[in-house]
């Protein structure tokens, strides 16, 4: 009786998955070689067989513009379908499973924000080996290699550098700066820390950087507590706060306003809360990224690749999707500049990055 459940399990497993016979010859991997070049605009000829899946690492306000971009690209490029799926729950294993599930449902081109920058190349390699077009969107893999067809992302180190420079300028080039950021063991956080450090080093000691306050992007409550503690302990000596994560940016803008301190807050992203803080003056500036452009242009390029109309001249190439300093002066008009940048990226794909038939 003891072995009965085990035997039943084995039988079910065998029944479910069965055996196979040795293949007589190795399966040919389809290739889409093209030596043609394109110097003008590239029109997607046949997108109806391409189904694009846009898969962020999990739910986050940053990715909400991807939803609209998914609808827009499906309509503009006449794709077979574009889905936005945010159920990966910030777990690389779950994201891998989700991608496989989407592939099983017929999606054949993937725009992915990898949960783990050190693991995502493995995921990209697996997807590529199954014949799918893959783009790394909004974040590139850690290290020097990108196994996806291309990476269209904000250069997070550059964006953090720009944010820190803006904060230092607002502080008058001297004083004490604090850096608030997210998960300390995330490769992108390490890049952001490098970017801020670089900007501070350029002041030759005029600006003192306090120890990085990391791991405060889990939720708004965590960020609010961290900011309250920081302001209570050292609020009077701090001249500027640069936040390279969403929740601490919102918390810092609100905390500084409530405390009535003359601290210059520079945030990241253009969430309505942050834009409101800039308009009100409780935040000095923010570095807006280009999530809509990443998803829209990314879907278009993926469709060209998966339909085999084009190939990448340099597979794995990294393209900066742009970062934009938003202050009180341009808070109402920066989106125009951003859309222009998206169009320029599309043109760059056509002229330099793609080789099309």
């Amino acid at each position, binding site marked *: *009786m*003891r072995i*009965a*459940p*085990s035997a*039943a*399990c084995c039988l*079910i*497993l*065998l029944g*479910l*998955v*069965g*055996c*196979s*016979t*040795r293949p007589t010859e190795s399966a040919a991997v389809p290739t889409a070689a093209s030596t043609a070049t394109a110097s003008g605009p590239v029109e997607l000829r046949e997108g109806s067989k391409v189904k694009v899946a846009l898969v962020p690492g999990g*739910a986050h306000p940053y990715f909400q513009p991807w939803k609209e971009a998914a609808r827009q690209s499906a309509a503009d490029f006449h794709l077979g379908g574009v889905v936005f*799926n*945010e*159920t990966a729950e910030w*777990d*690389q*294993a*779950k994201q*891998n*499973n*989700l991608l*496989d*599930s989407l*592939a*099983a*449902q*017929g999606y054949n081109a993937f725009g992915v924000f990898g949960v*783990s*920058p*050190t*693991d*995502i*190349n*493995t*995921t990209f390699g*697996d997807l590529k080996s*199954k014949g799918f077009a893959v783009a790394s969107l909004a974040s590139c893999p*850690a*290290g020097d290699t990108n196994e996806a067809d291309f990476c269209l992302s904000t250069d997070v180190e550059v964006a953090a550098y720009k944010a820190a420079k803006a904060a230092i300028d607002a502080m008058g080039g001297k004083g004490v700066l604090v850096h608030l950021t997210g*998960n*300390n*063991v*995330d*490769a992108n956080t*390490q890049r952001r820390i490098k970017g801020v450090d670089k900007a501070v080093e350029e002041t030759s000691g005029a600006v003192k950087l306090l120890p990085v306050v990391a791991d405060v992007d889990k939720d708004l409550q965590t960020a609010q507590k961290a900011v309250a503690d920081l302001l209570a302990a050292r609020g009077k000596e701090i001249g500027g706060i640069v936040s390279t994560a969403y929740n601490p940016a919102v918390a810092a803008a609100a905390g500084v306003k409530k405390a009535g301190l003359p601290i210059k807050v520079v945030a990241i992203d253009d969430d309505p809360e942050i834009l409101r803080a800039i308009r009100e003056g409780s935040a000095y500036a923010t570095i807006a990224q280009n999530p809509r452009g990443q998803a829209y242009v990314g879907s278009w390029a993926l469709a060209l690749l998966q339909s085999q109309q084009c190939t990448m001249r340099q597979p794995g190439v990294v393209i900066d999707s742009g970062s934009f300093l938003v202050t009180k002066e341009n808070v109402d008009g920066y989106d125009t500049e951003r859309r222009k940048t998206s169009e320029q990226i599309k043109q760059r794909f056509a002229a330099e990055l793609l080789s099309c038939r």
Partner: protein
Amino acid sequence: MSTRKPLFGLLGLIVVLVVVFGTLSPAFFDERLVLFPLLRDIAIYTVVGLAQMVVLSIGHMNLAVGRMAAFSAMFMGLSYDRLHLPLYAGLCIGLLAGAAIGAFTGWIIARTGVNSFVVTLAMDFALLGLIPVVYTALTANAAFTVKPDGMRELRQYSLGDVCLGNVCGSPAVPQMMLLAVAPMLALGYLYHGTRPGRELLLTGSNPLAAELSGIPTRRRVVTAHLLSGLLAGLAGFMLAVATGSFRATIGEEFLLPSFLGAILGGTAMAGGVVSVIGTFLGTSLTLVIRRGLELVGIGLEYLNVYLGVILLLALSADRFLQRRGVKS
């Protein structure tokens, strides 16, 4: 000492759910894109469940199960990155580290008599601080990304790559499943066929009676926690192989599934009752539901709601049928 009847109920539930999801979405039976990764996940999380089951067998719990996996994986990453050891040599070093941290935890519990909840929680905090410090000091991106020979094959190869003459195994069953089957067999033998295994269960069902019967209960506490650390390390290795690198965040998601698989499978939280096959089935049940819901296109808003509701309904029906069976 072990529960048997609920296993058939669980098995029946899984079969019913597979049929339902397969009917709603025929892609559920896709060997390459659904069954292979599903079974790979089941293998990993079964080992996670076993890591919790061995301490539940003595009436304890291990809240540091995920962090022990990360601690063990850290030694594996170090072995590959710094010592350039082969895949399985690094695995052995990591398993030793996992066993050591588990045994140390068990030793503290046995010596001090402090509740396992408190000690393993404290160990979790200690490792939460220690592991990122090591990764930050030794790596550029908080992960060991070196890939020793055989790692890619272990992730991608299935029993379809194992052939006897012209007949091969199923391409849907990952070779990694063998890493789960081995500890399942070993633990099955330990609990059913050996004296130390029976002593573990007696320690769990009544520690005082076990002590008075001459069972070295303190040693058994250390043994159970050692095994838990060892199995957590194995699960950490499997997850690292499946995702691609040995990183500080390995095991972050292990805690709840470790209890879920074991408890659903019939292991008692109070100790004294375990089920190895039950842990496998309990783990399979939750993962089948999640994968099925993904395939039928349930969005984030409702995914966990449906997961919870199906689990609740399925298990209530199972227990109801069991009671009816007992009465009749």
